[in-house]
């Protein structure tokens, strides 16, 4: 892949500049963003940062995938897997 990419687990995903992490994952067929802390799976729901369902981990921090823009080289993972603090 020559253009900018983000990483989801072991996958490399191309994105269009200005695209949200949620949309890049959705286009790649990734809808399940991992388990949530209470049994409700993490996934896009409202798409505008209101519902707090699409949380993922980026650089150790919990962020809304729908509000976070892709940057080249960004490593994105499920909220729960990486959150061992």
């Amino acid at each position, binding site marked *: 892949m020559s253009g900018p990419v983000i990483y989801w687990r072991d996958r490399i995903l191309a994105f269009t500049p200005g695209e949200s992490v949620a949309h890049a994952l959705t286009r790649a067929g990734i809808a399940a963003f991992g388990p949530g*802390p209470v049994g409700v799976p993490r996934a896009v729901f409202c798409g505008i940062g209101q519902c707090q369902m699409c949380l993922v981990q980026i650089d150790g921090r*919990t962020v809304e995938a729908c509000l976070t823009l892709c940057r080249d080289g960004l490593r994105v993972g499920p909220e729960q897997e990486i959150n*061992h603090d």
Partner: protein
Amino acid sequence: MDDLGRYDAIVLGAGVIGASTAWHLVQAGLSVALVDAEGPAAAASGASDGAVSVASKKPGPLARLATASLLYTRNLAADGPLMHGYHPRPTYIFGSGPAEGAAIDALIAKLDALGDAVRLRRDGAADLLPGTGASVERLVELTGEGHMPGYVAVAGYLRDPRIVKIWPARVRGLEETDAGVIVDLGTRRLHASRVIAALGVSTTTLFPQMPVIPRAGQLFVTDRGAPGALPGALTSAAYLLAKTTDMTALPRPPVVIDPLSTGQYLIGSTREDHADPGRVDFATLQKLMTRAAETWPALRNRRVIRAFAGVRAAVSDGLPIVGLAPGSTRVTLATGFEGDGICLSAVIGREVARMAADEAPTPALSGDLAALAPTRFTALQEGAA
């Protein structure tokens, strides 16, 4: 107006003190109604951090009563109403700079004098607890204390079906006669031989002569994460000082970092003289959180999802009010715990129930309970007149 029921005792206020008192009264075989304007744990008890801590109590009667209550809470948690409410956990007190260091030394001396219910386990620096930030110069670990969220304790006591629960019902007035006390709820009246008023910040609506004032503390809750990383609350020595020192004169922000069973953190807190649970401000949040994240750096990756102020019922002289209301033979007050009610509730509920049944207090506690008598304010007023 409907006359609705006669009880041996009516407890006003379904916070942790009222719930414990009601539970102890029904164990003694009395018929009990518990009345609240809102519902269970609607005020300070529902907004508390839940620390069952002797370390945070002022030396003297409060610290001694807290020690007795801690031991009794462990019993009630072994096979009683607090079985799912109380969990033992270590307590960490931290500080930086000379003023906080001196406060920690004073704490150790206080605990020594109180016997071995709470013991100093380790005294060192940040490396004593993995995950603590390097900015922490002094860190001590105490054992013997525990955690009990106020609303969980209330729910535990209220599980006894013999307690008649009446809410939402606001008490309009009390009328004391030779035969008993009439509790006026506006549309209906209740009768009882004895009334226990555990009204917290609402005390002055029925007892305006009692110097109970609201004292708010800002609290901030983070999102969930992996639980268990921090085994017990991390309390700054400045927070201990805040009980006796003006906010602006503290050496550092008075931070408490309390890990919750949900994997969230509860971060506090201030002491401010007002009663508005919505009064929280970003400047305080930023200052408390800056110190909190320096102390426990994992917080840097968390988010604050909720902010509110818990409103404690404080008393002008810094001691709770427990005993017969001035001029009354049937109405007992139990209020003004200023955030210490969670820890004290077990023993206070038991002792107030004894008072209401005309039994003598537990001998070892009688002196310290006498120091809490409401008559100390009437004596002052008479002396001043």
